[in-house]
């Protein structure tokens, strides 16, 4: 096994393409993803204001909108159809409509409508506009309500507390800094690595089946199928773990993502995850013995894997079929483990389950690979 590993490392250094796929490409992609999300939580979504009132009140609402971090007033539209055209073309993400007679109707107690239109097709940006506008208008209205109460002689503190008899105190469990950025990264990195670990391993193995090579040489060199397989795979496990470790140093060290769980558990999960991802590639190749077809199988399993992890749309809300498919993919469990152990500080007895699932997946894949290799060895099939 040792000899196969040494031979593999020599191969890795001799072949710039292989080194590029298993080390350079993942590092580059992880750096790319990190810099996409580096700027943090998005702010300053462009909105248009349709101010048909042109009063002190409407101007003060516009100022409040501009002051809200989520939005930024970039356009003044003359009417709703102009505002709509701005939204459709993408110039703004939403529009706030302040009707004519707003201030007058409000002082008369007629409760006029203020309407916020937002682009919900670009849901992430649109919901931010809705939230920002709601907060800004609430603030403007609260100021008005406060001045009415104070006008009636209430003390400022008393008036303030009377505005909201049941205040809602909101707390974020587990992720007090609201860091979706790092949370997204913590899941995107494994997704990309899963693709490359599976495809890269398949590619590395395919080189032993190439022209002028007999895969049985490898078995002879290692003295058995199992050591041959391990010797072939483990050097890459090391390479991918190194890349993963490097990105974790950046994530938890430099970017300061909280790491509030058990390190050994995280490490065990990482090893099992990389192995399982590699075994997907291995199985795809030994079954097809054609790197093109194997890459297609890897693509079908790993490319849509991000959606199944439930970071955007949660797993619990998916159909049972989607949940089951997601459960077969190593990345699903590894990402869950990372979130549990970094943000949620989940107790080990709950968090052990994703690790056990990963072990089960890795073992199942390894058994399938061994069975297929044994079959190939017995029948003496040599790939063309």
């Amino acid at each position, binding site marked *: 096994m040792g000899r196969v590993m040494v031979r593999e490392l020599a191969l890795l250094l001799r072949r710039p393409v292989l080194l590029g796929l298993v080390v350079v490409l993942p590092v580059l992609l992880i750096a790319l993803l990190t810099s996409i999300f580096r*700027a943090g939580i998005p702010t300053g979504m462009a909105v248009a204001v349709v101010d048909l009132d042109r009063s002190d009140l409407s101007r003060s609402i516009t100022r409040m909108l501009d002051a809200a971090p989520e939005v930024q007033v970039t356009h003044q539209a003359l009417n709703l159809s102009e505002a709509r055209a701005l939204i459709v073309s993408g110039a703004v993400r939403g529009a706030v409509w302040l009707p004519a007679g707003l201030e007058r109707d409000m002082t008369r107690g007629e409760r006029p409508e203020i309407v916020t239109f937002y682009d919900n097709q670009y849901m992430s940006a649109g919901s931010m506009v809705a939230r920002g506008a709601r907060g800004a208008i609430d603030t403007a209205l609260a100021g008005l309500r406060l001045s009415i109460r104070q006008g009636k002689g209430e003390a400022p503190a008393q008036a303030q507390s009377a505005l909201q008899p049941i205040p809602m105190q909101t707390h974020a469990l587990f992720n007090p800094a609201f860091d979706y950025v790092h949370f997204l990264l913590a899941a995107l990195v494994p997704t990309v690595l899963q*693709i490359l670990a599976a495809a890269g391993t398949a590619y590395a193995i395919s080189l032993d089946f190439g022209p002028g090579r007999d895969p049985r040489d490898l078995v002879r060199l290692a003295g058995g199928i199992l050591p041959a397989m391990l010797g072939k795979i483990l050097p890459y496990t090391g390479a991918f773990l190194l890349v993963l470790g490097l990105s974790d140093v950046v994530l938890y060290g430099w970017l300061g993502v909280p790491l509030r769980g058990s390190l050994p558990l995280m490490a065990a999960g990482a090893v099992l995850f990389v192995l399982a991802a590699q075994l997907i590639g291995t199985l795809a190749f030994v079954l097809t013995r054609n790197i093109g077809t194997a*890459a297609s199988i890897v693509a079908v399993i790993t490319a849509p894997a991000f959606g199944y992890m439930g970071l*955007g749309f949660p797993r619990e809300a998916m159909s049972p079929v989607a949940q089951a498919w997601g459960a077969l993919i190593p990345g699903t469990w590894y990402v869950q483990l990372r979130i549990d152990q970094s943000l949620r500080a989940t107790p080990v007895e*709950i968090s052990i389950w994703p690790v056990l699932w990963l072990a089960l997946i890795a073992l199942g894949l390894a058994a399938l690979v061994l069975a297929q290799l044994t079959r190939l060895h017995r029948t003496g099939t040599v790939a063309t």
Partner: protein
Amino acid sequence: MNAVLRAMRDELRALFGDAQVLSILLVSLLIYAVIYPLPYRAELLRDVPVVLVDQDRTTASADLARRVDASEAVAIRTDARDMAQAVRLVQERRAYGVLLIPEGFERQLLRGRQSPVAVYADASYFLMYQRVMQGAAVPIRQMGAEVEVGRLMAAGAALQVARAQVSPATQVEVPLFNPAAGYATYVLPAAFVLILQQTILMGLALAATRRLQGAGNPVVLVLGRMAAWVAIYAVLLPIYLIVLPALYGLPNLGRVRDALAIGLPFVLAAGLLAQCVAAVFRSDAVVQIVLLALGLPFFFLSGFAWPVEAIPPVLNAVAQLVPSTPAISGLVRVSQMGAQLPDVAMPLWHLWALTAGFGLLAVLIQTLQTRSASGLSDMQATGRSET
């Protein structure tokens, strides 16, 4: 003209004659069309489970809990004695939020004081957090407003006056497009464009790596290949952009010909980019693996899921070189937002500019390849029969 047709025929033969290219172009369409959208079929997140920690146990606290439970977004599934037990339920992913009503809630309300309640939501899942906060905020605010109106009326105000004082204006929020906030409606139109691009890139780059250096005028060869892609995607593009979205019940507000007008330069730009990718990486396996890994970064660079406002300017500039960036913007605006061609003039011209740029590069690459292969043209025939 005959030379263009010959190049077109050669490319069609190369694409249809290669089982692997064909499987990428056609079979992956089927598989991806099934596997990609599967997680999002449920569309909406309803009745997110929330734990109730009611330390007050009064009529008022029960009323508040009932109102929160009645909201569409959340449902109160379990009671917990204290916060520790509630947090444990959230850690086990059996609930995603906690509504804590402290002791003395009703007493404070009856005394005319402020009586706060606390909502804890699982912030490690973005959508869950939003839904829990939404589901709790509206009923709590409503109950608060009713209490305030009651107090003002007790102090002698008329109902209308009290109401106007509590909320001087009515805030209305109107989602334009995707009004139900469906997750599939949100993500699939953009995802389909990205999948289309990745299959074009993979399939055509694969064919390009396996192609033996063609002989002839490089411009003619490239034009002929472009004609071949247009012929194939005249069939595939409507499937991705019209049939699949319709099968998934996604709305389509746009005109088919507007979508196709954007689709044409998109297919050409992606196909020409594939020629460049193939020239850089050369090996068929490597091309496939690299493009596979790039799919997700391309998606987040496109400015759809992650707003362009938050993407660093340098990266955003790089993102403009990827056809999916303008194509997602243009096609989503046409199909989902009812944009017409003047509304999407920017992405449309952007795609034609990419077509021109990558076209020049592809001709340049072809020129170099033709030059290095001059004199080997008779090997071409034997080479082709192998594939």
